């Protein structure tokens, strides 16, 4: 009995504690969330900047939900559920939107692999019909025959510098 009373008091204390830690909701708290949302009424303008009546109402709603103790993620989820994915500044990573997130990564990866392979090909001159280079490249790291030319260019560059 005593123990459960203790638990009860502890729970109450925790509840009061978290509530007071939240304190008053400021405009900054509202803006921090509004920044991550787009109101369909002002296209391509983040909610924290848009001045229309509709967007003011939306910000008031964020404030209300914050005061009711909702977390940032919960508020964003609420808006997404109610108004669709278009209200999120960062498209949710689900369904077709994965294309948006994965395509650049895939391009960089494949591009990188291709790029490295291509460089190696260019360098080794594999099955290269041009006799100038292939004659010298029994060993790919061997200096190419234009070495004196290289030296000349480097001199030229040094002169420029």
């Amino acid at each position, binding site marked *: 009995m005593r123990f459960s009373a203790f638990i009860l008091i502890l729970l109450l204390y925790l509840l009061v504690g978290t509530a007071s830690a939240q304190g008053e909701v400021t405009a900054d708290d509202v803006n921090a969330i509004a920044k991550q949302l787009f*109101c*369909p*009424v002002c296209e391509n303008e983040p909610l924290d900047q848009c001045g*229309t*009546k*509709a967007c*003011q*109402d*939306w910000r*008031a*709603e964020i404030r*209300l939900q914050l005061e009711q103790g909702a977390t940032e993620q919960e508020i964003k989820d609420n808006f997404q*559920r*109610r*108004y*669709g994915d*278009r209200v999120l500044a960062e498209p949710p990573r689900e369904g077709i939107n994965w294309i948006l997130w994965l395509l650049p990564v895939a*391009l960089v990866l*494949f*591009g990188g692999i*291709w790029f490295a*392979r*291509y460089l190696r*090909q*260019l360098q080794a001159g594999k*099955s*290269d*019909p041009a006799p100038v280079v292939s004659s010298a490249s029994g060993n790919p790291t061997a200096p190419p025959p234009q070495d004196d030319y290289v030296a000349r260019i480097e001199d030229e560059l040094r002169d420029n510098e």
Partner: protein
Amino acid sequence: MSELPEQLELNEAESAEIKPRRKWWVYVVWAGVAALILFLGYGLLNANETRPEVGKQAPDFAMTFFDGYEWEDYQAANLSDLEGKIVVLNFWASWCGPCEDEAGVLENGWQAWRDDDVVLLGIAYSDIDSDALDFMERFGITYPNAPDLRLDASDKYRITGVPETFFIDKDGTIAYVQPGPLTTSQLNSILQEILNS
């Protein structure tokens, strides 16, 4: 864009290979070009699509009514469930000034025409639900109303702003579109005309 660099690589490889092998990447490039064209073409068509025209089937959508603003006994309904009635589909929002002027017109219209198989149906566009409820209470609105969930309905009707009203005939085709606020006389004459036809 991704296939373009491949030309370089193949171009290199190719100088040594036999001719027939070169062809496949050309198809890849052309396929990419075609895909890009189709993609942009779709975007263009989609952007140029306008409101559903008069005479066309009214796009169906699902709605969950606001508490206290249900249609008959239904908590939720599809627009198609209202077939057989004339539907005055009104997109509005609590943040929209002209909607305030229009609210009384629509409520009076609802009272005047509800016995003639006319249903007034409000859809609150991009609105905070509590604000929408306040608005309806303030203007004494009693006709069925639903939030525009995920902006699905306004997308389907391609509204250009609020208020915007679609008159849907008993067979589910669009009979008249009114962008901007309605007046009582307009409402009456449009409904009369639909009923007469």
